[in-house]
């Protein structure tokens, strides 16, 4: 079995896919920054931000369903913000008794919770669209363009190159374990011996995986040296950003800036 489904890139012919990856990267970051900076409770601004990201999703032809299935990842973390409903603010909303306790919800707290949940939902959508509409090598180029250290970018690239190989390796290890001792890894099934034994077996697999990675990295290094590697990652010089992409960049940033400013003006 080979693991290709990890790659979130979805090939489509859409204006979003065709947009220069550097511009896309910067715009996605700007969008997330705008979401973060928008004051709590600026609902119209949130609505507009939602309209914006939904438009991008429609334009990208990725399918709203696809994006939102991936965006669900941020949901569990929202639980962490839930208590704020009951601790923040002083406008009484409702109270519910739990055993001998009484939980009192406040309007300000609810507003804050809803804002945070919405912000994180909007941000994760932008990240999903970015990852789904730009192949990883393009994202690497974008990272280079925004001056992320070269070593880090080439590490990202190498990691991506070998991620699938090593995930396959991990899957092989898990298949071997399943063959030896039943379904040891599935949550809830208690095959295998004691908990400590299961943990140790899994640990052995992790050690094995790292060892194979070490040895593989040696071979990769040798192969790279044989091809003339001298510690410097070389790549094609970047093409200048085309004029139309500049236009989208300025337009997008301007729009986000306007939204942010109206948020500050009226709800700050």
């Amino acid at each position, binding site marked *: 079995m080979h693991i290709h489904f*990890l790659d979130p890139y979805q090939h489509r012919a859409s204006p979003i896919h065709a947009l220069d990856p550097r511009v896309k990267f910067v715009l996605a970051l700007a969008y997330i920054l705008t979401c973060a900076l928008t004051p709590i409770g600026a609902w119209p601004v949130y609505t507009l931000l939602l309209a914006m990201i939904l438009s991008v999703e429609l334009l990208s032809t990725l399918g709203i369903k696809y994006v939102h299935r991936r965006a669900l990842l*941020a949901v569990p973390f929202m639980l962490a913000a839930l*208590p704020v409903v009951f601790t923040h603010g002083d406008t009484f909303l409702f109270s519910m008794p739990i055993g001998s306790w009484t939980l009192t919800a406040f309007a300000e707290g609810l507003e804050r919770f809803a804002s945070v949940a919405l912000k994180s939902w909007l941000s*994760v959508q932008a990240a999903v669209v970015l990852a789904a509409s730009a192949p990883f090598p393009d994202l690497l180029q974008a990272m280079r363009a925004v001056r992320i250290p070269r070593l880090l970018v080439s*590490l990202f690239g190498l990691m991506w190159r070998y991620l699938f190989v090593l995930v396959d390796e991990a899957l092989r290890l898990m298949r071997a374990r399943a063959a030896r001792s039943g379904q040891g890894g599935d949550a809830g099934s208690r095959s295998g011996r004691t908990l400590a034994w299961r943990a140790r077996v899994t640990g052995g697999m992790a050690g094995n995986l790292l*060892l194979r990675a070490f040895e593989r990295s040696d071979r990769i290094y040798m192969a790279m040296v044989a091809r003339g590697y001298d510690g410097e990652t070389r790549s094609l010089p970047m093409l200048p950003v085309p004029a139309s992409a500049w236009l989208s960049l300025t337009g997008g940033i301007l729009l986000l800036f306007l939204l942010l400013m109206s948020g500050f003006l009226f709800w700050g």
Partner: protein
Amino acid sequence: MYYAPEPMHIPDGFLSILVSVVLWGVTVPVVAYAIRRVSKDLGERQAPLMGVLAAAIFAGQMLNFAVAGGTSGHLMGAALATILLGPWAAIIVMTTVVGVQALIFQDGGLLALGANIFNMGIIGVIVSYWVYRTFQRLAGGRKWGVFTGGFLAAWLSIVAAALAVALQLAISGISPANIAIPAMGGIHILIGLGEGLITLGALAFLYAARRDLLHIGEAAPKGGTAVWIGGLVIAAILAIASPLASAHPDGLEWVAEQKGFLDTAQGPLYNIIPDYVFPGISNEAFATIVAGLIGVLIVFGVTLSVGYMRRKKKA
């Protein structure tokens, strides 16, 4: 799905801007310094070694084992990376892992990436290094130092990272300290045991198969003492701040208030304009109208362009 996200990657939107910015401010110089150090120590081998190991740590996070009650334990890997590679290379490897997780799998936000690298990469690694080194010295090169140190380093790296997450959420005013810290801490004291056991198993395997690998990170790197002290300080801060903050959430409220001052200090800058430009118009009404107009324009634009594209495709 094989890939199980940890409840430790903070998504975007949860941290206040101030906390995000401060943590970026800590993360960037530390990672930059680590890059410089590693370039010097490892030379040109570093890129393939660390890139492949980052992929291995990522893949290793899929390995899991069944724990009672339908849950499963799995690996974060900061301690294992630290023991195998030493603190600086481990920081870079964890930065790469956390970065790709955020960028590709939306596991953790992009703006919150600074905080996530700080929690899992920097705190996780430095604390692991502190514990592991301490036990190695205590054991004086005997076997139990590797295993006890490895187990405790892995356990503490998880607990410390979780406490840091809880503190950051509390300072951001998202989650009250007296709930977030005991909750995050309590859960991760247990989750950390899983990490510790897996790390222990991995070390046992490596000890038997390739003992020399365990000594790479051991060769005390220059500045190792500074990292050791850093680990001690972080552990101490977390150990003192967490119970204090959860017992006296007022303390954090005070911090938040200070932050509030900063926010309101910026306020007037924006407030002058509406009063000046739109006298007599109720701000809210005007805002709603403007917002509605922009919204209509956007939706109109989308409809037009989608329709236009459909037409073009058919043609």
